[in-house]
């Protein structure tokens, strides 16, 4: 699917994907248009969807509580349809820092945050995040004090996870849109924290 400009032979997995897709189209199980529409929809989903939910939780405490109780239902209130996704939102506090990983594969709340970053799927991140999270976070430039508990969530089955970061000081008079702009994808995975300026 990648346009590399110059001719290169297909890799093993590209060949497998193309062969399977062409067979499915040939047998009338899916159409090219349906595949293209799904790829376009997948690429169109951006982490801003999650940022919107975080910003709302920061300004509306009742929403924050609903988000923690049932992330899927709360996101739907905001018009963020995430069918079939069981979203568990974990909250950072002055005592607890959360981070998400999938050691088995690359489970990620795609319908909310879009395509995961490549490092999220790397063997390095997946194996080390459960084993030495403080060292991994330090490599992301995030130093967590020893007094703060680190909770690493290994996403192994039917749930998907998102971190609700803490609202930074100095944003007390900000509106929701301005708040959402500082909520990065990485802060919702738990490898960064939102910063002012």
């Amino acid at each position: 699917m990648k346009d590399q400009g110059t001719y290169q032979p297909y890799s093993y997995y590209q060949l497998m994907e193309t062969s399977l897709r062409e067979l499915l189209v040939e047998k009338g199980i899916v159409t090219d248009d349906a595949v293209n529409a799904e790829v376009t929809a997948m690429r169109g989903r951006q982490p801003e969807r999650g940022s919107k939910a975080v910003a709302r939780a920061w300004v509306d405490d009742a929403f924050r509580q609903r988000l923690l109780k049932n992330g899927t239902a709360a996101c739907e209130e905001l018009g963020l349809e995430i069918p079939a996704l069981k979203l568990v939102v974990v909250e950072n506090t002055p005592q607890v820092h959360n981070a998400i990983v999938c050691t088995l594969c690359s489970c990620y709340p795609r319908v909310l945050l879009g395509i995961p970053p490549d490092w999220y799927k790397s063997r390095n991140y997946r194996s080390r995040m459960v084993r030495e999270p403080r060292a991994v976070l330090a490599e992301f430039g995030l130093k967590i004090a020893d007094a703060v508990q680190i909770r690493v969530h290994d996403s192994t089955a039917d749930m998907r996870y998102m971190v609700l970061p803490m609202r930074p000081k100095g944003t007390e008079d900000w509106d929701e849109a301005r708040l959402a702009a500082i909520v990065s994808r990485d802060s919702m995975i738990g490898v960064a924290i939102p910063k002012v300026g």
Partner: protein
Amino acid sequence: MKPQFATDYPALDAKFDKGDRVRVRKTAPLGHIRTPFYIRGHVGEIERYCGAFPNPEELAQRRDGLPAQPLYRVRFKQKEVWPDYKGPASDVLEIEIFQHWLEKA
């Protein structure tokens, strides 16, 4: 215990409550297993009951995975999982584990 996400599959009863100590079975069956190797044999505490979901080991064999298996989030102390863990004793790891992989500790 009430699940965080209610499902309507025919399901097995949830055997564990929040706070129960459980041990992950130490076994190595073949197939598509969603219980990571590194946690097998370790003891943790039920953090929440997520709901009942079709057994992925059965789904991978193109069966229906029913009755659905209760799925829990289990909290483990990092120092217990990795004896040489570098970090405070309060650090934890949370993992979703299906009931058939858990026994009372």
